[in-house]
C-alpha cells in the first residue's frame, strides 16, 4: 500500500544512495513534540480520537496516544483507518490486500479525529481517508498529523502537525521504518544524492 503511494513517480533504484534523516532518538523526540502540539492545539486532547492510516500510521498513532497519556494522563482512543478501497489509483495497479479499519468503541461521531500517517506526499491518501471517514460517521472536525512532509502536493491539503519537513526531489523517496513493523526506528531519504 505505502509502496503504491511512492510509486506515483519514478522509484530510486535498489542500490541508490541513501541518507538517514532521523534516527531512533530523533524520532522519539519528534513524536513527543507532536504529542505536545496536539495537547496544546486541542486544549488537553479531550474529545479527540487518533486514527492511524495503515501500515505505519497505526503504530505512530499508538505512540502518540501513549505520549499524550504520559504527559497529561489523558487516554485518547486509537483506531485504524484503511483507505485502500477509497484510493483513486485502485484500478491502475494490481489488486491490493486490505488493511484493518478499527474504530474505537465510541465511534467518531461528534469527536475531533486526528488522522495519523508517516509520510505526506501528494495528498491523495489523505483525500481517500477523508472519503472513508465520511462513510464511517460525522466527526466534529478532522486534523492531520504526519511524521514527515516531503512536499509535492497534488491536492489542496496540508497537515496540522508535522514532525519534520524534508524537501525532496521527485526522484527521491522517503522510507520510514518503525520497530513495531521493521527492524529499527529510522527515516531515510533514498536516491538523488550523487
Amino acid at each position, binding site marked *: 500500500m505505502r509502496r503504491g503511494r511512492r510509486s506515483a513517480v519514478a522509484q530510486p533504484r535498489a542500490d541508490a544512495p541513501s541518507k538517514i534523516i532521523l534516527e531512533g532518538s530523533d524520532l522519539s523526540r519528534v513524536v513527543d513534540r507532536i504529542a505536545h502540539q496536539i495537547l496544546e492545539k486541542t486544549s488537553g486532547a479531550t474529545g479527540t480520537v487518533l486514527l492511524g492510516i495503515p501500515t505505519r500510521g497505526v503504530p505512530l498513532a499508538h505512540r502518540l496516544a501513549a505520549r499524550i497519556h504520559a504527559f497529561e494522563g489523558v487516554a485518547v482512543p486509537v483506531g485504524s483507518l*484503511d483507505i485502500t*478501497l*477509497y484510493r483513486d489509483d*485502485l*484500478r*491502475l*495497479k*494490481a*489488486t*491490493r*490486500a*486490505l*488493511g*484493518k*479499519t478499527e474504530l474505537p468503541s465510541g465511534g467518531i461521531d461528534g469527536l475531533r479525529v486526528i488522522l495519523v500517517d508517516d509520510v505526506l506526499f501528494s495528498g491523495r491518501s489523505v483525500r481517500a481517508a477523508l*472519503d472513508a471517514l*465520511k*462513510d*464511517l*460517521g460525522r466527526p466534529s472536525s478532522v486534523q492531520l498529523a504526519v511524521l514527515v512532509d516531503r512536499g509535492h502536493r497534488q491536492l489542496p491539503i496540508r497537515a496540522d502537525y508535522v514532525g519534520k519537513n524534508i524537501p525532496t526531489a521527485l526522484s527521491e523517496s522517503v522510507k520510514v521504518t518503525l520497530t513495531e513493523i521493521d527492524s529499527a526506528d529510522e527515516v531515510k531519504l533514498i536516491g538523488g544524492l550523487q
Partner: protein
Amino acid sequence: MIKHLRSAADLDAETATLILDTAAEMASLSGREVKKLPALRGRTVVNLFYEDSTRTRISFEAAAKRLSADVINFSAKGSSVSKGESLKDTALTLQAMGADAVVIRHSASGAPHRLAGWVDGSVVNAGDGTHEHPTQALLDAYTMRSRLGRLDGLKVAIVGDVLHSRVARSNVLLLTTLGAQVTLVGPPTLIPLDVAAALAEKTQVCYDLDAVLPDSDVVMMLRVQTERMQDSYFPSAREYSRRYGLDAPRLHKMPGHAIVMHPGPMNRGMEIAPEVADSPRSTIVEQVANGVSVRMAVLYLLLGGK
C-alpha cells in the same frame, strides 16, 4: 491474483486465505450506517443465471452493489435463451456490452470454463451442474474459521448426497487445500466407489454417520437433491432420514464445540431436524450473511486492480 474463479481448485492456500482475510474486512461493513464502498464504481457485473436460485443471486447482487458496481441480472427464463440462443451468443452479447465480470450459474457442468474462453471479463462460477460451487465453499470455510478460529487440522464431515453435490466437491478441494481433514458420509449409492476413489487422496469415506459424529468439529449436511434423483438412490425419505438425518440425539453425540452447517435450502425433517437447524450450534443463517462478505471479497480481488 487469479482472473477467474471457476473452481475451488483455482485457489492455492495463499490466495484462499487472502480471500478469507479480505472477507473479514468486508464483513465490518455490515455494521456501518453506510453499507457501501466505492471500490468497483463504474464496473459492470452481470449475474447470468440459467438455473433457479434465490440466495446465491441475491448474495452476488448485494455484494456487487455494496462495492458500487452496476449490476445486470439476467435469468434464462423470459430471455432470448428460451428462443434458443446459445451460451456463446449470450456471451458475445455480454462482451459487447462491456461486462467486467460475469457470475454464471448453469445446469451444465463446465459452462463457466467455456464462458471464460468467450469473454474478456472475469468469470465467477456460481454453481455449474453437479460440478462445483466455489464461493459456497469459501463462505463455508469463512464460517468455520470465524466460529472455530482455524481451518488447519479441523475435522469436517460432509454428509448426504455427495454424488450430486457441487457444494461437497468444492468444499473437499478448498478445505483440504487449507489443511482440514474431510470425511464424506452418506449411503453407498450416493458416494459410489468411483467418486470415493476420485476423492480418496484427499478425503476419507464412511457410510455410518453415528461413527463419525463424536470425532467431528464440523458436520456439514447436504440437501437431498430431489430434482436430480432420477434413480432410486435410497428406499424412502424416512429411511434416509433415519440413517443419515441429523436429529437432536445425534447432535448430542457431537463434541460440545462442534457446529452444524447446511448450504440451504433445507429439507427440514429429512436431512436435518428442525430443532437442529434452529439450534445455536447451527450456522445456517450466519452462512448466508457471510456469503455476501465472501462474494464482496471475490469480486474486489478479481476486479479491484488492473
